[in-house]
């Protein structure tokens, strides 16, 4: 009757299976060693290539990766104005492409942040028709292969340009330029802004906004004084993401850029495809230092705000 009683055949002394224990301990040893080594291999894998890249930007040898002594001549070459063997690889071109990249980055970030934020507020806080379709539209660009997006934009632009040419009777001759590059960048970065901002909005209770309305604020005041400040970390994170994506993009840009709209990734790509030399290590090092500086700056900024 009593449920607590042990069955008759239960052992009086707690015993253990020695073979099983040995087996379990050897599994633990393997696991311990594995877990102690693998993460560091992972970190080494992530950091070593960058470290090697930077180290060999100070190498004397031009032709191969044998260490032949320390030099700063590759950096001096960059600052003096010329690197590599071709005339197009000069510092003025590099700086011009950097300038274009920043221009494209800033403008496409502003556009995609405004569009992405407003569409997420609309979808999350208002009743809109076709909201499922718009959601699908928003998330598709994230998963579409870049090459497909680039090709589709190229075909679309050349198609619409030919229509414009015909309608205007040849008076307007549009072509690929920084404008088409910016349009393309907004297409792939706006969804990321929308995803980040919507995540923030979804985790934000409506009660704050309702309280503002109860206290007599109108719709605009509620938005400007309550929703927007609460949403700001999400908007800033989304904008940073959009800027990074724009600054990093090669594929879509290569399809949408015209003559004279070479951005930094296009310029660097041309260099890398052409040669592997310490000059490029030096330029890469400068890019790495600049982007790590930006990352650390934004991390510190967010920590201070928090």
């Amino acid at each position, binding site marked *: 009757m009593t449920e607590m009683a042990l069955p008759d055949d239960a052992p009086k002394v707690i015993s253990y299976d020695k073979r099983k224990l040995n*087996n*379990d301990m050897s*599994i*633990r040893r393997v*696991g311990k060693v594995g*877990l102690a080594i693998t*993460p560091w291999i*992972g*970190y080494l*894998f*992530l*950091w070593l*290539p*960058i470290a*090697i*890249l930077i180290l*060999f930007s100070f190498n004397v040898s031009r*032709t*191969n*990766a044998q260490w032949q002594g320390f030099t700063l001549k590759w950096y001096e070459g960059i600052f003096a104005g010329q690197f590599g063997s071709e005339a197009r690889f000069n510092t003025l071109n590099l700086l011009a492409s950097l300038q274009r990249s920043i221009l494209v980055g800033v403008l496409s970030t502003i556009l995609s942040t405004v*569009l*992405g934020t*407003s*569409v997420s507020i*609309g979808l999350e806080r*208002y009743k*809109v028709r076709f909201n499922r379709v*718009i959601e699908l*539209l*928003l998330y598709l660009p994230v998963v579409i*292969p870049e*090459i*497909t997006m680039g*090709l*589709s*934009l190229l*075909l*679309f632009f050349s198609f619409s340009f030919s229509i414009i040419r015909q309608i205007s009777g040849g008076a307007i001759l549009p072509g690929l330029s920084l404008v088409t590059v910016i*349009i*393309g960048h*907004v*297409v792939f970065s*706006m969804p990321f802004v*929308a995803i980040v901002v919507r995540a923030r909005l979804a985790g934000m209770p409506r009660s704050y906004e309702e309280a503002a309305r109860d206290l007599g604020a109108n*719709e605009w005041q509620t938005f400007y004084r309550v929703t927007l400040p609460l949403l700001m970390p999400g908007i800033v994170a989304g904008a940073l993401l959009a800027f*990074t994506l724009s600054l990093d993009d*090669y*594929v879509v840009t290569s399809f949408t850029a015209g003559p004279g709209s070479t951005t930094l*990734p296009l310029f*660097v*790509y041309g260099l*890398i*495809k052409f040669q*592997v030399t310490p000059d490029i290590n030096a330029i*890469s090092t400068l*890019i*790495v230092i600049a982007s*790590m500086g930006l*990352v650390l700056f934004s*991390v510190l900024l967010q920590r201070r705000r928090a």
Partner: protein
Amino acid sequence: MATITTVAAVPRVSASERRKRATGRLLVWPAAIWLLFFFVFPLIIVLIYSFLTPDSIFQVRGPLTINNYVRLTQPTYTGVIWRSLQTALVTTIISVLVGYPLAWFISTRPKETRNLFLLMVVIPFWTNFLVRTYAWLFILNDNGLINSIVKDYLHLVDTPIQLVNTSFAVTIGLVYGYLPFMVLPIYTSLEKLNFRLIEAVYDLGGNDWQAFWRVVLPLTLPGVLAGCVLVFIPALGAFVTPDLLGGAKALMMATQVNDAVSSPTGKPFGSALSIVLMALVSIALLIYFRFADRSETAL
């Protein structure tokens, strides 16, 4: 009589409700129109192009044809498609094998250092993608670091080992590029894991392997699956890595598309190939959603 009832049944929309709807439209439409024009229309054009006949003057002409798709069944192109799938799959598997222990390591650090270790994964990922790929080109090419060590210092070989322009180099580059996509979701699901469940396994006589295989892995499976899809999809459609590290010898679908559309008459064929690429990505996503649903109901 009937007319009157119908009129009465129409809900009266108040002025404020109407204004609210107008605001909603105003917020949503600009983005929707942007995407309609610069995303949906362009995709439709690609789809149409893929069914057109190439023309040396106008790039394309009628009539509609499926020849571009038929051409994809030639061994050269099925080879490229197969290689893309294989490379993306191997990349995903290696990323899980490296990424899971890494995520485990980070999630078992004390709270103060955890963010630092997480940042150590993310920072390389924030530096320019081209520069990171170039770093591997520098290490793997014929005069690169590995060859100069093996050939010039150790004298193990006389001629440089062919490392660059192989699927091997592409796979390394892809794992390097997308590893954080695997680590972050696994880390997120490990952070939610109740570590006392592992003690429960020990109490019930299980060992470390059983704790991992029967408890930890099933509970973090959603994170692993999310990581797999986040690595597999961009790896399948990757362009920069196979172009720089694989060259003409290890063509993948994206590099093949680029080769095709660079020639004036290649646009329809390139379009067909990129439609197939898109279809493969969609299939991968559908499989993911099936698995993700099941693993969530299993919990």
